[in-house]
């Protein structure tokens, strides 16, 4: 995803017209003025709920999280262990097509695919959450420092952001993990997190700059509020909507990146299950055992799609200016 160029001066937002309260508003906005008066958050939630695709995304994410979190409680017992093998039995249980015993079949090592997919979801969601967490922490600090202190700090940090944005994402993730040594989850988190911060920093910096000059911030400062307090009490609420949208989308991107790394053998290491790794194993069985390829791919697709739809829905609901 290439970053859009700087906003065109005077360019209007895609949906700005709808909330324009000046006289002589365009005819279509008449209806939109009906039913005001709820809180912004409540309003957003209401709009989100109306978006069926976004709700589907939310439900799917919730299901995945639930499966991943509860896996240890029931998956090994009912579906089979995702890692352990009994080598004396393995040969006869290898590559079973889907059946009642193994809902999604077994892989070559005789392990249950459903079990591995659920544990793979855990790996994917963990990477998504932790990497985005890292990206948020770095991005917020960088963005806040750049905007709040301005001057040389701003230049340095924004230049650094440019440098990171100049790197092609997937390529650099692969190189970074390659350098740090593949196979360590920490390195995967770090690589994806390190690459994502400039987006967050830019958004947050923009929000800070927009609010910093406001009088109420001056007032707060005059009353002796500390900088972090100002940031979090006054600026954060304004920045939260675009950040939520960006972070939601980023989880999807991070999951895709992790899958790619695992596919290349540089992400989560076998025997621990991961969707990318399972696809890599499945390459040899495109014809003889296609279910190996189908389900992990569907896992990635649906989960990332869920985050994308949810992010889209949130953007519309929170009325965030389109940033593509």
């Amino acid at each position, binding site marked *: 995803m290439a970053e859009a160029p700087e906003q065109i001066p005077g360019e209007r937002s895609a949906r700005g017209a709808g909330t324009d309260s000046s006289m002589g508003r365009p005819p279509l906005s008449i209806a939109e003025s009906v039913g005001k008066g709820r809180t912004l958050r409540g309003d957003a939630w209401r709009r989100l709920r109306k978006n069926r695709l976004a709700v589907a995304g939310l439900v799917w994410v919730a299901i995945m999280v639930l499966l991943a979190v509860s896996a240890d409680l029931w998956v090994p017992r009912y579906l089979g262990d995702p890692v352990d093998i009994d*080598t004396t039995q393995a040969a006869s249980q290898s590559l079973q097509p889907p059946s009642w015993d193994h809902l999604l079949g077994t892989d070559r090592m005789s392990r249950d695919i459903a079990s591995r997919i659920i544990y793979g979801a855990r790996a994917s969601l963990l990477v998504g959450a932790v990497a985005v967490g890292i990206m948020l922490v770095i991005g917020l600090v960088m963005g806040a420092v750049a905007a709040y202190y301005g001057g040389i700090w701003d230049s340095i940090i924004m230049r650094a952001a440019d440098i990171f944005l100049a790197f092609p994402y997937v390529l650099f993730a692969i190189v970074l993990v390659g350098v740090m040594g*593949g196979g360590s989850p920490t390195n995967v988190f770090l690589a994806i997190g390190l690459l994502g911060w400039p987006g967050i920093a830019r958004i947050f910096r923009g929000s800070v700059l927009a609010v910093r000059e406001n009088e109420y911030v001056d007032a707060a400062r005059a009353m002796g509020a500390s900088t972090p307090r100002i940031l979090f009490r006054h600026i954060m609420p304004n920045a939260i909507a675009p950040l939520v949208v960006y972070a939601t989308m980023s989880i999807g991107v991070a999951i895709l990146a992790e899958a790619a790394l695992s596919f290349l053998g540089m992400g989560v290491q076998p025997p621990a299950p991961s969707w990318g790794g399972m696809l890599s194993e499945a390459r040899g069985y495109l*014809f003889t055992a296609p279910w190996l390829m189908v389900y992990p791919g569907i896992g990635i697709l649906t989960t990332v799609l869920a985050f994308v739809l949810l992010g889209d829905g949130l953007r519309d609901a929170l009325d965030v200016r389109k940033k593509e």
Partner: protein
Amino acid sequence: MVRTRKPALYGIIPALLLTGVLLAMTACGQEPTTSTTAAGGEIQKGGTLVYQIGNPSFIEPTQAFESEGIEIVQAVFDSLVQFDYLTNELAPDVAASWEANEDASVWTFHLSGESTFHNGRKVTAADFKYAWERICDPVNKSNISYHLSAVKGFDEMGEGAATELSGVKAIDDETLEVTLSYGYGDFEYVVGHPCLCPIPKEEVEKDAAAFALKPIGNGPFMVSEPWAASRYVRVVKYPDYKGTQPNIDGVEFKIFEDVETAYLGFQAGSIDSTQIPPGNVNAAKTAYGVSPDGYTSNPGAQVQLGPELAIYYMLLNNEAEPFDDPDVRRAVSLAINRQAICDIVHEGVRKPADSFIPPGVAGYVPEAWAYSKYDVEAAKEHLAKAGYPDGAGFPIIKLSFNSGPGHEDIMTLVQADLKAIGVTAEFDVSDAPTYWDKVQNGNYQIGRSGWGADYPIIDSFVYSNLASTSADNFANYNNPALDEVITAARQIKATDERIKKYEEAVAMAGEDCPVVPITFYAHSRVGSARLHDFVHGGLGMSDFVSCWLEGAAAQ
């Protein structure tokens, strides 16, 4: 993934079996003939055979160190002697005859005088000397100089103290005399290696870079256009070749980063010979028919699953606890369910290893290594004997290996087997260079390796891996008594007697169990339906001379 590019060895040497390439497998060539070969039988001339290879680093003989490069060298160059593709027997090539002195330390080769380079010049003894010195010259940083380590003057040259191999003398155009630092009865096999061929000095000195991309050799095929990086190397038959002329017009060595993609291409009909990726062997057997001997592909019997002269084994660090105790090593060896590995990972193509020497190498004795079998109870006993009843008190072990799905699968099974005797092993995965670095520096507990024969001799396995003086003895096994036996064996000129001595050495080592043999390699390849009499031998080389393509000439 990783498995595809040669990787592996980055520099490592010898015949370490290149990870991916060798992940190959065997299946029994035992199925009785199901089809008569060569429909029609009439040999047709012409056509270009499309042959899958991995991405080579080098295709010129003085640098080629991976099988993909060596296969091209094999087609383009001829060495002093050659091995029969099917039987691995030694036969004359550029050298018509040769003899050795009493202790096998001085060898004299008599060239037939018929071989010419593709530029038309006659091959002389000096061309061998030039080529070999180029291999050994440290400036060229060649990874294959180890082939010549027995030659007198090798060390001096490697250290930069000498500019020529003092042991190699071109007595005249047709006589090459090689003096070794020690007696080495197998040296006649060593010079059969494809990369120890002659090279034309004038071409190299004219433009070494061009030579690297379009080597000029003396073999049945000549490179027709410079190597298209990552895409192909094209060779056509050399019209003035004095040996047997190929039936086909040429070979396109098509470069693939991974076997899966190549196999898709094969199924789509644009490749004549490829490896079969893991997981497809059984389907391929049904679809294309199995070659009765495992080496020869003919229409309807296209799947080649013949054993290769190579072994996959676990390295145990003999120098460090707990594997300095032979009983612990024996326990590990007995714990591993080799049949499961063969069945699951290799689809029954490879066979469980019962010795460190693969069948097909003269000197293989079945079940020579008593601990190389699956016996959980015995494993537990040995573990108890070593002071760890049921694994109690046994430290958590690191299972190190280079990444790649093939290894991962095997290690997953090994891990499960070790767990069954109470030993907990954790994975320690790294990329190939890092892994080999660890292994060479002894920074590991259990590792893996593969070893394939450069030349079909038992010494290649025994000396390199088990002698304490060998640089490739990664298990750090040190048995002075064994070293003596090996040294004695190397100097025996009579082949049978020499092999007997090596068998003795193998038995000695087996008792100590310094490494854990897992499987004997076999390749798993498939040829197209238009390809006849195509042999891919146990040394991993394909014979492009005797094969022929049906209907290709008409195209």
